[in-house]
């Protein structure tokens, strides 16, 4: 069935099937891997860009209230 669908895209033949297999194997592996990552670690990584410089540097400097024309 997959081959039929892919062939409709332009005669991909066996390469389509092989590619789909690689695609699913790779993404399934990735999904399993990331699902088992722990929340504290994920949270600490997510916060990294927000805590990398002094507070004065993180304030918005492109929001209204600045000098206007």
């Amino acid at each position: 069935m997959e081959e039929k669908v892919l062939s409709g895209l332009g005669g991909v033949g066996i390469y389509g099937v092989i590619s789909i297999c690689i695609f699913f194997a790779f993404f399934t592996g990735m999904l399993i891997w990331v699902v088992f990552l722990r929340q504290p670690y994920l949270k600490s990584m997510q916060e990294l860009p927000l805590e990398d410089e002094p507070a004065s540097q993180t304030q918005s400097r492109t929001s209204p209230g600045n000098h206007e024309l």
Partner: protein
Amino acid sequence: MNVETTTPAAGTRLETFKYDNRIVRAFAIATAFWGLVGMLAGLLVAVQLFLPDANLNLQFITFGRVRPVHTNAVIFAFVGNGMFMGIYYSLQRLCKARMFSDTLGWIHFWGWQSIIVAAAITLPLGFTTSKEYAELEWPIKIAITVIWVVFAINFFGTILRRREKHLYVAIWFYISTVVTVAVLHIVNSMVMPASLFKSYSMYAGVQDALVQWWYGHNAVAFFLTTPYLGMMYYFLPKAADRPVFSYRLSIIHFWGLIFIYIWAGPHHLLYTALPDWAQSLGMVFSVMLVAPSWGGMLNGLLTLRGAWDKVRQDPMLKFMVVAVTAYGMATLEGPTLAIKSVNSISHYTNWTVAHVHTGALGWNGFLTFSVLYWIFPRLYNTKLWSIKLANYHFWIAVLGMMFYVIPMYVAGVTEGLMWKEFRPDGFLRYGNFLETVTQILPMYRLRALGGSLYIIGVVLMLVNLYRTAKSGQFVPDTEAQAAPLLKEPAASPAFGWSHHWLESKAGLFTILAVIAVLIGGLIEIIPMYLIKENVPTIASVKPYTPLEVLGRDIYIREGCLACHSQMVRPFRSETERYGEYSKAGEYVYDHPFLWGSKRIGPDLHRVGGKYPDAWHFNHMENPRNTSPGSIMPNYAWLLQQKLDTDSLPPRLIALRRIGVPYPEGYENGPAQKDLRAQAAKIAMNLKVGLITTYPDGTALDKENREILAVIAYLQRLGTDIKGQPAPATTAPGTASNQ
């Protein structure tokens, strides 16, 4: 490096150090400056498409030579400097360390700017390899390699000196950029020099095409996309003041993207003479690219959940949102265009131009503007001079992008369908290619308007950034504190073989990234060399004659392939228009391949013998002489400049060294004799066509000028498979342009 150590009450030893802002400022200024230059070069070539005389009849600013100036300036000068700006700013802060070496940073900066200047000088002079986005000649290619190594040492040195154990997702994208661009550049730059500014690709024909588009596609991936994704993952959370939506998704985005992207190169060669298996692989992996790309786009947009009120107020976020949206649009459209049936209509048309500029103007441009608006106030410890002006910039840029992209879609679909339309009696409805050119001229004019608007926006930004800088005080170093990185056991028992563990191993991470990247490239490229059936040879295909070699090199110098393909695809609409479809075996002596990627004018692979020599002579002097309404520039200088036959021997020697079977010693006499004989024959044909002198009155047989070599080459094109017919010798007429 200026590191001080303090011991706070908690007992943790903290180190005080400084982030280097000077190098960030230098790259930021270079980004803004080269952005303007690159876009102006784009406007110049855009105008020439509806006003050919805009080249002022100067060869140095003619479309074919300036187009690579535009593409190189935007890719390597604008986005390149933008990437370095973002990396030098964020890498230091994510690693909690100053850059490894200030000196290496400045060598990198000035080296890169020197390369850009060298490109801006050599490309208009016609020194080009002709391979898209890799046009620079071999001495500059070597300089790029050296400077990239300098950058890589500084980059990895900083990572090794980091005080933050884990590498944030932005750094993974940077790592993939640094290593993959190096691999792509080296493999695609394999050339045989013939002189200081002339070389021939080591690869020929089909193999050269595959390597080039493996490079070209992945230059888009790893120069225009991955570093900017890294910047998105760093600057978007900062601007939104909230963490990235899903770190899990970012892991899938990264590994999925770098693994799949590298396979997709052959989608640039669908329906060409490239073996079908490679085309199919390229197509299906391109379709798969939607998954990681959209994962990344959604991750970016969802980071703004609950913060959309900020987008309304903050122009920096406005630019960022449009950039991420454009990334999503371009990465959905790319795989769509890679489907063979869609590609059969879109390829060689302005649809591709629209697609490319959705990415360049929307993704790269808007993200760069966003980061510049973010960085400048911080570098100068002030606020942005004018929010209102930044908002004007935003809306003008959006309008400019719309006026650019939409006309190009209309033009692309129009010409793609016109090329294929048949009348009920079985003949092409638009048999004269020129009809399909003049039909889309209004779209070219609208595109130039869009580009102009976009450039006006950039000027507003430059004013705003300049005034911002003037209103503040530059902060050369930003002081920060962090605990040093302690040595820990290699694996954490709590997490085992996890991404957590992998992110702490920069070296291993880099190696795995390289492996993920290389798999696709190797699987596609190696069989192309090892399996002979991939390029069936054709006995009647012979090397180019000496005069044709010189003519081909002039064709390369003038950038003719920017407008003319040399690849007749196996469609009835193309065989009807051009002749027999192109075979892989016809290109075995083509160093480099000249298939082109755009048909602003008609395909030329079967042009040999189609018109008399005199037609070409008149056409080159002024294309309107033979093809009224043509938008091709005049190439009058080809009729004025003496043919450089002194450079013939080193050219033939270089070609022989890479496999073209010219006999030993052929360059020492016999080649010159053959050249003179062929030139004399063409001069004779021209006389039959009532042309006896060059425009300045010099007799044709008095001096061999460049036009003779160009005619020789054009008359040879595509004729090998039908033997070697003599060019037609009828008098020139006003034959339509195919």
